[in-house]
């Protein structure tokens, strides 16, 4: 019996109600798949912004920290990552926007219904995977254990995927330039436009932020699936001085961060702006700067012109 004959037999034996159901299923299954909401695949970071790129260790420009958040940021010494107990701590969920690597979305179907149980954003070497539960399960109670990846749920709002993440541990939100606490909530929106995916992240933290910290990133769908895979972390002795004195905790005392003035020295940006705060996010803050700021000579590695001549000595401009 050929497939055509089998199909005919199947249809013949259907009840009228079942035939109607088949028709409805066929209608939806054959709907043109514009793929606007299918996030499956590897999304290469494509936006040209400085979300995770900063040259100077103290750069809190536009970050809405409160006093505690600023203090926490300025006490941080990157050498603390070499402490044995911190070597395997990974970045928090917002690092999906801030970090340098692609997003890899994988669909997790329900084993019985094959419907969407969860989206999974695969982890990197230093960011835990994000499981986005789509099945309506609630978030755990606030006292439940926290993890570096947190607990995330998602919903469709039209063609947009909205996710909410709680229960993440304290983590670094801008490449060693500030932290979110374990009470933070991250809401993300994923909007797909053709082969572009825009993520808008809204981070709220009653401990370290005075206002929501909002960041965006744009990704482009790519067939190149090379990524930075999540691998087992193995602590090793990195800085002997940390082991010679186990009581030593790398940190900077208040007001003693050695790089506090680098942004001012390099770009003439006043220190009050460099230290961030919610007011630095808003346009009117420019008025505060107008009389204090003079554009510097470009001295960094990204200057297109020849370097400025030295003031005196060999190579100086003849007087």
């Amino acid at each position, binding site marked *: 019996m050929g497939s055509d004959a089998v199909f005919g037999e199947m249809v013949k034996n259907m009840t009228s109600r079942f035939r109607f159901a088949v028709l409805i299923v066929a209608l939806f299954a054959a709907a043109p798949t514009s793929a606007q909401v299918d996030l499956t695949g590897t999304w290469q970071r494509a936006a040209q912004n400085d979300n995770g790129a900063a040259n100077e260790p103290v750069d809190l420009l536009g970050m809405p920290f409160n006093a505690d958040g600023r203090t926490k940021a300025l006490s941080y010494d990157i050498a603390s990552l070499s402490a044995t107990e911190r070597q395997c701590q990974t970045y928090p969920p917002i690092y999906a926007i801030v970090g340098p690597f692609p997003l890899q979305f994988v669909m997790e179907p329900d084993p019985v219904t094959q419907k969407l*149980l969860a989206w999974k954003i695969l982890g990197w070497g230093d960011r835990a995977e994000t499981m986005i539960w789509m099945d*309506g399960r609630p978030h755990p109670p606030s006292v439940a254990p926290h993890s570096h990846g947190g607990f995330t749920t998602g919903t469709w709002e039209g063609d947009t995927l909205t996710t909410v993440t709680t229960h993440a541990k304290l983590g670094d939100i801008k490449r060693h330039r500030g932290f979110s606490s374990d009470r933070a909530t991250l809401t993300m929106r994923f909007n797909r436009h053709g082969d572009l995916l825009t993520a808008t992240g809204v981070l709220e933290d009653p401990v370290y932020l005075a206002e929501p910290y909002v960041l965006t990133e744009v990704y482009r769908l790519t067939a190149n699936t090379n990524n930075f895979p999540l691998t087992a972390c193995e602590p090793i002795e990195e800085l002997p001085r940390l082991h010679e004195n186990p009581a030593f905790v790398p940190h900077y005392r208040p007001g003693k961060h050695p790089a506090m003035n680098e942004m001012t020295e390099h770009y003439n940006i006043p220190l009050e702006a460099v230290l961030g705060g919610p007011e630095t*996010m808003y*346009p009117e803050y420019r008025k505060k700067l107008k009389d204090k700021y003079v554009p510097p000579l470009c001295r960094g590695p990204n200057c297109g012109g020849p370097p400025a001549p030295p003031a005196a000595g060999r190579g100086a401009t003849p007087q």
Partner: protein
Amino acid sequence: MRRALLIAPVLAVLVLLDVPVEAQRGNQPSPPAPRAGAPIDLTGYWVSIVTADWRWRMVTPAKGDYQGVQLNAEGRKVANAWDPAKDEAAGEQCKSYGAPALMMVPGRIHITWQDDTTLKVDTDAGIQTRLLRFGTQTADEPRSWQGVSRAQWLNPRPNVPLQLRPANRTADAPSVRPTGGSLQVVTRNLRAGYLRKNGVPYSENAVLTEHWDLYKRPNGEEWLTITTQIEDPQFLSNVRLVAPVFKKEPNGSKWDPTPCSARW
């Protein structure tokens, strides 16, 4: 014969699904005007939130500092020749307020409907106006800082495909909501200008494509993300992608019209 009668309706539905929606409308009433049929409401006052690229947006960066913009050799040459005094002398203080740069300029925008088919976007920074026109009509217009913008609503799918529908496990879980939508805007016919205040150039042949997405939060806040693509092979070695963010304000009490400046 009986089998054919049973299969025919299924095949007919499948065939119809491949026919463009417009062709299936027949004598159905024409769609509402863009204003009446807007899937999202963008009108109101919005303030830009500068959490990214602060050093190049909130202050005028150094001449030759174009970190983060993928310029080709010709673009770098133009950027390195930036001379604000020359721009002022030529009456071109608004070169960094053209459409490809305007939404990244710190400031407030005010969005209103000029008529049923035109969204008007006013900015207080530089006192500029963008007109986002729906429809396909074309007009001969001289090149301008804001160019000619064609707008189109992108409505959400009526239903999420079956395989992407959530496997709800709770009885009271919300159903799939066909809400939202997006505004797509394509802008051409531009005058050459600057992507940044310090003379990082785009050419008059640049094409700007934007997607405006709204996010209404349960706490009442509204956020607007504008995914922005700038294609300009003359000066850019790659498509420039940025996504500025705005937060809605209750009124225009902080509206602060400020003329264009070539230096600040």
